[in-house]
């Protein structure tokens, strides 16, 4: 085990399409997290920003941008980028600074102002960039990959479009009770089935939107939290962001082909390995979990995560869903926040928002979304270029 850090503050700017700057969203989330922590900004020793990248440029390098917006006060400044796992990398960077004894308190911030429509690479000819190539040669958008995975589940596991729709119905019901969610209306299976097909078999309501939003955390040493009057703080016990292991055998964003396997094509081990590294670091297993926040880029992908996190056996994700185990009130609620289905993706903020939800749940402050007696939570996320992450928090 690595050692724990305390989560003493969590804050968010509501997700949506607000037409404002990511700096404004991030600063509001940071101020909310500082208020939640009961700390003044000048007391913070370090700020870590998850970079907001547009057109290949980490626009207004995040850590420094938020430090300036809050008012330069001399803190250490760090910015990190790891695609969808940027937020988790920011948390891990803060954790390393605290556990090394370098600092006692760190503010972690991620914010995005997302473009409309499909995520696309920046302009110009870049035939050495796999992300540019998949759009240029094949027009393979992110939903196309989600759809390939969904179709394969249907063929191998017997999942149905009705199962996928049931994930949306479940997450929309939870999101309706979350004031930070972008979509706050219940959704019916009929509404999912009536939405247009984007990439067969996935429909518009199976696929997460892109959103504006921001999330922030104040992390500290456990000693600092206790001195600060938090006797029983939420603690981060593991942060995993392992790379895949060669050969990749599942087609993954942004690749046009898999690696060539030395033997028969075995199932790809990347997503399970992210969770396994987190479980090992935390010294717990899936049976210890109270809740999970997973990256439902599509409804079908949420079912994949059930299996990758070990909540059920391979191929049985839809069965677990049909039993009601992953709904609020079930054995192991998944995405009690409402998930990406209710938020849409705000890339550098999303992995931090997942940990904000764990913090609220473990502190018993999740209101109508509260998982009774929550003690242990896990997050899981995955993005471009072999990035993924998992965070385990306990109380």
């Amino acid at each position: 085990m690595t050692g724990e850090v305390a989560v003493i503050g969590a804050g968010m700017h509501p997700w949506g399409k607000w037409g404002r700057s990511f700096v404004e969203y991030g600063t509001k989330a940071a101020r909310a997290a500082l208020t939640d922590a009961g700390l003044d900004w000048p007391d913070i020793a370090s700020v870590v920003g998850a970079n907001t990248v547009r057109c290949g440029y980490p626009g207004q390098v995040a850590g420094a941008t938020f430090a300036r917006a809050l008012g330069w006060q001399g803190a250490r400044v760090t910015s990190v980028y790891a695609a969808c796992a940027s937020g988790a990398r920011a948390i891990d960077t803060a954790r390393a600074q605290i556990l090394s004894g370098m600092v006692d308190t760190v503010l972690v911030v991620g914010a995005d102002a997302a473009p409309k429509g499909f995520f696309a690479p920046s302009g110009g000819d870049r035939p050495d960039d796999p992300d540019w190539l998949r759009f240029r040669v094949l027009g393979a958008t992110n939903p196309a990959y989600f759809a390939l995975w969904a179709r394969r589940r249907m063929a191998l596991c017997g999942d149905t479009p009705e199962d996928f729709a049931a994930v949306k119905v479940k997450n929309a019901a939870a999101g309706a009770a979350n004031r930070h969610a972008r979509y706050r209306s219940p959704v019916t299976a009929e509404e999912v089935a009536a939405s247009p097909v984007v990439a067969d078999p996935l429909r518009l309501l199976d696929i997460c939107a892109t959103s504006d939003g921001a999330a922030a955390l104040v992390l500290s040493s456990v000693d600092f939290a206790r001195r600060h009057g938090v006797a029983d703080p939420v603690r981060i016990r593991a942060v995993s962001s392992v790379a895949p292991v060669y050969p990749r055998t599942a087609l993954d964003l942004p690749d046009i082909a898999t690696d060539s396997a030395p033997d028969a094509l075995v199932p790809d081990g990347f997503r399970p390995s992210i969770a396994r590294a987190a479980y090992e670091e935390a010294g717990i297993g899936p049976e210890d979990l109270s809740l999970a926040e997973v990256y439902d880029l599509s409804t079908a992908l949420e079912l994949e995560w059930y299996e990758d996190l070990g909540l059920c056996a391979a191929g049985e994700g839809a069965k677990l869903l049909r039993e009601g185990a992953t709904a609020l009130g079930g054995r192991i609620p998944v995405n009690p926040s409402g998930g990406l289905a209710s938020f849409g993706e705000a890339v550098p903020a999303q992995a931090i928002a997942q940990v904000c939800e764990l913090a609220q749940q473990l502190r018993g402050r999740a209101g109508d979304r509260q998982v009774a007696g929550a003690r242990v939570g896990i997050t899981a996320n995955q993005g471009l270029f072999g990035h993924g992450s998992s965070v385990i928090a306990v109380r």
Partner: protein
Amino acid sequence: MASARTPVVAGWFTSGDGDFRLLGTRCRACGAVYFPREDTFCRAPRCAGEELDEVPLSRRGRVWSYTDGRYRPPAPYPSDPARDWAPYTLIAVELAAERMVVLGQGAPGVTVADLAVGMEVEVVPGVLAGEGGQSWTTWHWLPVPAEDVEESS
């Protein structure tokens, strides 16, 4: 100006007539095959190989998964905004000999209703049409007629 004989990416498939194949590379040290081609280093973590030879990939494979694009993809995908959007299929194909999965567009006229996971398909030359009559050569996957499926593959 690009013509129908200009490949969308140089060196990814054979040119001209005759036996059309995707072109990958194979590491001389460990035998790993790469598509898109790696020409400088082998990516196997325990292989120091730096010599890779061009190798044609299997002509046929089996559908690993498939989907379609109901909306026009964003740039840099070449498409003519003056023309109505016509969905195309995307097919991920498992090549048995290489033990890898390669994505490509389905040949014109192939819809998701024509496809199933495990179905045999064959690589064929295709054309990618852009704005103002520009076009490039590419590869497409085409279902193999049932009577033509090779027993052994």
